[in-house]
């Protein structure tokens, strides 16, 4: 069975500070991990993915994520937060041979000016 958890409903960070949005997963097989962002009244936009290779993945808008197999985590990071980064962030997982795609419950990021 596959599952993904985002332990924080809300993350607040000051503008210019580094941000981290947490994600842990459970799969059988090799994981494929994704981060998406959702702005109000919009669909989900793809940020970045881990399929294989380097554990540090770089994506859109200066975001990056680190795949940690031993901790089954895929935390989203950005060195310097912008007010415009305020949005709802979703982690998603599937795995080798799996056809479904499961999402976490989302983390609302608020960047305070």
């Amino acid at each position, binding site marked *: 069975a596959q599952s993904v958890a985002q332990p924080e409903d809300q993350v607040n960070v000051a503008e210019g500070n580094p941000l981290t949005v947490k994600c842990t997963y459970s799969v059988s097989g090799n994981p*494929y991990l994704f981060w*998406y962002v959702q702005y109000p009244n919009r*669909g*989900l936009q793809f940020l970045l*993915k881990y399929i294989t290779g380097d554990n540090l993945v770089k994506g859109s808008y200066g975001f990056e994520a680190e795949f940690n197999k031993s901790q089954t985590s895929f935390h989203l990071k950005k060195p310097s937060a912008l007010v415009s980064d305020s949005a709802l962030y979703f982690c998603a997982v599937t795995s080798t041979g799996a056809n*479904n795609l*499961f*999402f976490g419950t*989302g983390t609302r990021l608020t960047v305070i000016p």
Partner: protein
Amino acid sequence: NAGVTQTPKFRILKIGQSMTLQCAQDMNHNYMYWYRQDPGMGLKLIYYSVGAGITDKGEVPNGYNVSRSTTEDFPLRLELAAPSQTSVYFCASRTNYRGMNTEAFFGQGTRLTVV
């Protein structure tokens, strides 16, 4: 390239009515998905399809039906609408490139209210 297109964008249904949410993609993706997003909540998988003629249930399939007669289209049918089906519905598609799953592309959503 339109990507994933959902229609309608908004709909109000009365209890007991039925409707079909349309989803079409022009990327020749084999995988397609339907999710619902309740206010302040995450995405729940309703149904998915791995290709024309093949569908399977997700986490919350009750009260819904799907069909996949072509690669491009994946309509979601609501029979006997209930207030609990008030939600925002998202359709998504993805493919498999050289044996590896690609990211999913999402439509803009359909906001459904059942009164």
